[in-house]
């Protein structure tokens, strides 16, 4: 080495050494202008409306430094009253989705080319102008359910282009329910139900806890009537071929053959009339009804509907005894003839039970009623095929996924002579077939209004800065079609005008107030029901005739049912990582779409759980793994709708299969809808095996003290004395407070607390298992998404998961138990950590100190509740989904243990406010994310040191117990036993 080389090497070495050592310099970017309502580091809430389904719940979007980091329900909104379902929570991931289309895409020779937004607008304008110049009826449009403002702009534009009005497409359009309401109540629409007012509820498949009409609203109402309080608890019966989540919450499930529901309703009508339970019914009508229902004797019903006679009797006798019964028809998927007959008979039964209909609100109507019937949608595509239009618009709909390929719509969409424009933010199956895809602003980014019920007009406002240059759809239509008609081409002005002219808002001040409150909430229209005294005779004649065909529609063969999904709705949720990662409430399978098969059927077919079967109908076939489920009737196989996308981004593509592929696309003439089930399917073992991505260890509790229930009878008994033993069942409830210290049991000294000891109560009687809490937890706490493979390895990261246990004596009975860190006073995790990473805080919380953790995983091994999660990998947050991360919560890295913190960041926020005001934190001031969103108020959080706090009152309940309390962990999560009726 000569001197020169040495100097070179030494110089380079020291330079690279210096560069390697210093951390890259960071920048602090100052804003150019600071918004008035923004305090850096504090969230600002913007009231808006959830558009993940047509229900129209009010939301508050929490904006931090320009980006929305969390969505919560708007407490002022009458529909959801501050609560949200898991789909609402996950709406956020649509905005920050890594596969969101950022610029318009034009298809040229089968290749996509990005163009600019002005180019796209000019293209739309030129195309539509040329089409309109050619003649009338050259442009068609299919849209999702939208607000009145947008709808009227669409229709003005279509008129301008001399084309027919837009068609509103919803895969779940409730055709049979609408027609049944028209026949019996004279209302061609969807009325609201007052489940809270009923003392007995019967559902013939209506899955009101999941997707049906307005699930958050009905879940709340359901628990108002069905939760145990003051010694009272309403009854809920479910009649259906399979238990949806709603069915799993019933007191008694009456399994029936698909198509048998209507027969059971008629049997019930007969029983009601026979026992004279009917009220104020016109004698002629009574006779008529009696006449056609007389055929449906108990024996006939049992035989035709494949129901158990014992359970039918129980249902009938409870219905007859009930004071304010409410009967609901078929579920979201009940569009077939059986759905229509059932809904018709159910309306009649409600009328027979009480013509005043005290539990039905005819004046308050769900907006989704404006959706077109399936027949009209098919007609739209048939017409397109026969007479191709020049321009076809699709607004945020995915008919290619939702309608079976047999309907010929794929060909209709991609006809070469027609220019198809899809307004979509994701490359879904429909957008892929379009010629031009134009992303538009998502609901969180735009001004709008949407009335989930006609009298509850919710407003939308931009809750965040722009992530893409996308325009709002209203503005785009104003500029391209209505530029010569309207004075303002600003969509916000159109919304403003709509609220002023259409909804009686006066002046700017009222507008601002409406935006702040999240809408204008008027009382419902006067109830028109009093005018309906009785159904008309001629209707009953028609009904009697149509009922004759009923017994034919009952199926005895192997039936395949496509079930609307609480996670994906009609498939639109499938691209959200949270919705995939949070498992299905009943099967507890994440990322996959197994087919649910009864164990008896499995045995008959010689298949086991995890075997991949091929299911074939005359319309299509699919392969899917089997999940053995006791919640379906033998001979019925069920698969959730939503997965099996061929496009729609990285989280949806090639996950699971699409059950709609097996169905016929034909419209059922009597209902105008379509059947979501098909009989005579062939099922065959392929010999392959697929590991299911389940998150449960066992279906049953093996006799341990985990998810407990008690009967109403046992509760009515005098309270037993407080037990004082050391066994599983006689170990006393031991509060995590100094008073819970007992020298005869405790090894460690008592832990003293000053002002606070945080705790939570979970009322299992209120928990419906919907999983909204789990999704909210993912959103709030930056929990990693691990994906299908890692879930199979058991490495899911959920801090809170809703555990599902079946009753070994009666596997149809389900208990749900939200399980999160129990914040024990004698925490087993704390005593085994070699580095003190789990640390007991002075407010009772079990703090996990991430930067101290060295990853021995001893704590997880020693935790009896299995709530600790280890970061086996660095989880990915593909840009820009990382923008959703909550800045108040540390993002954990590989090799670190983590777990529920009771939302410590929220405790700290409340503490800050209290300290500034020199007072203690008030009860109810700290609301963790799970508690905040629970639609049924099953979770309550508070301070055990405050004897007046709600949580302290709740632990005095005779139903209170601690999960595995007998190991003396003194958990701070206190469960209240589920209450079961003895039926």
């Amino acid at each position, binding site marked *: 080495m000569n001197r020169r080389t040495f100097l070179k090497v030494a110089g380079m070495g020291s330079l690279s050494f210096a560069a390697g050592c210093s951390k890259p310099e960071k920048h602090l970017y100052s804003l150019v202008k600071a918004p008035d309502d923004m305090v850096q580091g504090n969230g600002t809430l913007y009231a808006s409306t959830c558009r993940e389904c047509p229900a129209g719940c009010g939301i508050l979007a929490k904006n931090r430094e320009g980006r929305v980091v969390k969505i919560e329900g708007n407490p002022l909104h009458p529909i959801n009253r501050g609560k949200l379902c898991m789909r609402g929570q996950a709406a956020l991931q649509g905005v920050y989705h890594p596969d969101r289309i950022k610029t318009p895409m034009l298809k040229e020779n089968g290749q996509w080319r990005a163009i600019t937004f002005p180019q796209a607008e000019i293209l739309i304008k030129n195309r539509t102008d040329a089409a309109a110049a050619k003649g009338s009826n050259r442009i068609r449009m299919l849209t999702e359910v939208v607000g009145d403002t947008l709808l009227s702009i669409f229709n003005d534009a279509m008129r301008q282009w001399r084309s027919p009005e837009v068609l509103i497409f919803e895969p779940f359009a409730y055709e049979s329910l609408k027609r049944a309401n028209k026949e019996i109540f004279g209302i061609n629409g969807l009325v609201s139900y007052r489940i809270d007012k009923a003392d007995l509820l019967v559902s013939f498949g209506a899955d009101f806890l999941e997707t049906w009409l307005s699930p958050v609203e009905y879940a709340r109402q359901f628990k108002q009537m069905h939760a145990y309080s003051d010694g009272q608890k309403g009854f809920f019966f479910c009649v259906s071929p399979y238990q949806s989540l709603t069915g799993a919450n019933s007191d008694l499930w009456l399994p029936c053959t698909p198509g048998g529901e209507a027969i059971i309703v008629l049997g019930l009508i007969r029983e009601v009339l026979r026992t004279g339970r009917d009220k104020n019914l016109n004698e002629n009508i009574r006779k008529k009804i009696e006449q056609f229902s007389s055929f449906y004797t108990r024996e006939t019903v049992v035989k035709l509907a494949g129901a158990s006679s014992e359970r039918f009797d129980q249902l009938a006798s409870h219905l007859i005894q009930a004071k304010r019964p409410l009967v609901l028809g078929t579920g979201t998927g009940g569009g077939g003839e059986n759905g229509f007959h059932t809904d018709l008979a159910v309306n009649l039964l409600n009328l027979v039970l009480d013509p005043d209909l005290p539990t039905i609100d005819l004046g308050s109507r769900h907006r989704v009623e404006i959706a077109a019937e399936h027949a009209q949608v098919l007609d739209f595509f048939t017409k397109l095929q026969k007479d191709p239009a020049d321009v076809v618009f699709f607004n945020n709909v995915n008919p290619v996924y939702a309608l079976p390929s047999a309907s010929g719509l794929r060909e209709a969409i991609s006809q070469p002579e027609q220019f198809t424009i899809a307004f979509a933010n994701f490359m879904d199956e429909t957008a892929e077939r379009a010629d031009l895809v134009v992303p538009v602003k998502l609901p969180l980014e735009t001004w709008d209004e949407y009335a989930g019920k006609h009298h509850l007009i919710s407003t939308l406002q931009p809750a965040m800065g722009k992530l893409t240059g996308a325009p709002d759809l209203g503005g785009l239509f104003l500029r391209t079609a209505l530029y010569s008609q309207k004075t303002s081409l600003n969509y916000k002005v159109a919304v403003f005008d709509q609220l002023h002219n259409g909804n009686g808002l006066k002046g700017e001040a009222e507008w601002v107030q409406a935006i702040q409150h999240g809408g204008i909430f008027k009382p419902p229209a006067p109830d028109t029901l009093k005018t309906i005294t009785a159904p008309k005779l001629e209707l009953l004649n028609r009904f009697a005739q149509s009922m004759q065909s009923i017994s034919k529609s009952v199926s005895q063969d192997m039936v395949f049912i496509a079930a609307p999904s609480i996670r994906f709705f009609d498939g639109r949720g499938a691209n959200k990582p949270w919705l995939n990662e949070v498992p299905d409430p009943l099967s507890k399978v994440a990322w996959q779409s197994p087919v649910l098969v009864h164990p008896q059927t499995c045995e008959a077919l010689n298949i086991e759980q995890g075997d991949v079967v091929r299911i074939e109908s005359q319309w299509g076939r699919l392969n899917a793994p089997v999940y053995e489920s006791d919640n379906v009737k033998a001979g019925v196989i069920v698969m959730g709708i939503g997965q099996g996308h061929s496009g729609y981004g990285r989280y949806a593509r090639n996950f699971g299969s699409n059950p709609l592929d097996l169905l016929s696309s034909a419209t059922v003439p009597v209902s105008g809808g379509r059947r979501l089930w098909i009989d005579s399917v062939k099922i065959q073992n392929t010999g392959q095996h697929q590991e299911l991505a389940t998150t449960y260890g066992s279906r049953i509790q093996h006799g341990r003290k985990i998810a407990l229930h008690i009967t109403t009878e046992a509760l009515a008994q005098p309270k037993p004395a407080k037990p004082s033993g050391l066994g599983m069942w006689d170990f006393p409830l031991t509060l995590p407070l100094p008073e819970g210290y007992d020298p005869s049991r405790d090894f460690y000294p008592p832990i003293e607390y000053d002002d606070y000891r945080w705790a939570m109560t979970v009322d299992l009687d209120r928990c419906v298992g919907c999983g909204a809490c789990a999704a909210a937890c993912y959103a709030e706490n930056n929990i990693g998404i691990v994906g299908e493979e890692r879930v199979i390895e058991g490495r899911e990261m959920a801090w809170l998961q809703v555990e599902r246990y079946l009753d070994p004596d009666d596997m149809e009975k389900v208990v749900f138990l939200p399980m999160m860190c129990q914040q024990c006073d004698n925490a087993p995790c704390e005593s085994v950590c070699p580095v003190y990473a789990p640390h007991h805080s002075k407010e009772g919380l079990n*703090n996990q100190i991430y930067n101290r953790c060295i990853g021995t995983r001893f704590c997880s091994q020693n935790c009896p509740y299995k709530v600790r999660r280890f970061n086996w990998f660095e989880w990915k947050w593909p840009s820009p989904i990382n923008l959703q991360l909550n800045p108040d919560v540390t993002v954990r890295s590989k090799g670190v243990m983590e777990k529920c913190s009771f939302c*410590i960041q929220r405790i700290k926020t409340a503490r800050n406010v209290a300290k500034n005001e020199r007072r203690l934190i008030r009860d109810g001031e700290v609301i963790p994310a799970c508690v905040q969103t629970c639609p049924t108020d099953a979770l309550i959080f508070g301070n055990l040191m405050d004897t007046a706090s709600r949580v302290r009152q709740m632990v005095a309940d005779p139903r209170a117990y601690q999960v595995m309390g007998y190991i003396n962990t003194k958990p701070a999560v206190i469960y209240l036993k589920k209450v079961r009726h003895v039926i």
Partner: protein
Amino acid sequence: MADMESANTNTLKNLGLLLVVGITALFILLFLFFYYSGPSRAFGPEQPIPFSHNVHSGVKQIQCQYCHPYVAYSNWPGLPPVEKCLHCHNYIIAKHPWIQKEHQYFDTNTPTPWKKVNYVAEHVLFNHQRHINRNLSCQECHGQVQNLHRLPHKHWYMEDCITCHRRMNANMDCWLACHS
């Protein structure tokens, strides 16, 4: 003779080795000196606009909260938006090239890329609000900022927090105090 020669070459070799080691050590020492106590370390990084805390806070006696307005309401004190600088500098030395640069940021809607000088580990959430509302002055932690033109780098360590929290008998809880 041959021995003599080999002894000479050995000495030469040893001398060469010594020289190599010596120069290496010199380089390392120089590097360490400049890395840890070079003049740029004392001054802190060069900012996009040579803002002087001394002029604003020391000479002109502008309150810290005027430019860091959220310090009593939030975890973060906040940086002044470009707009705020121009509230005064539209009138004061408006034609100065640095102010012209500020105008450029404003006109082109560009956030000013200030260089960060105070570093706290990412798993720590320091809450300014709590400290200011306990009547701690900014200087108690940040030093005599009003005497400095350019702020130097400062890394905060857990020891700094713990020492003070012990002394003031403040919250020592992990999550409640600093982490989450």
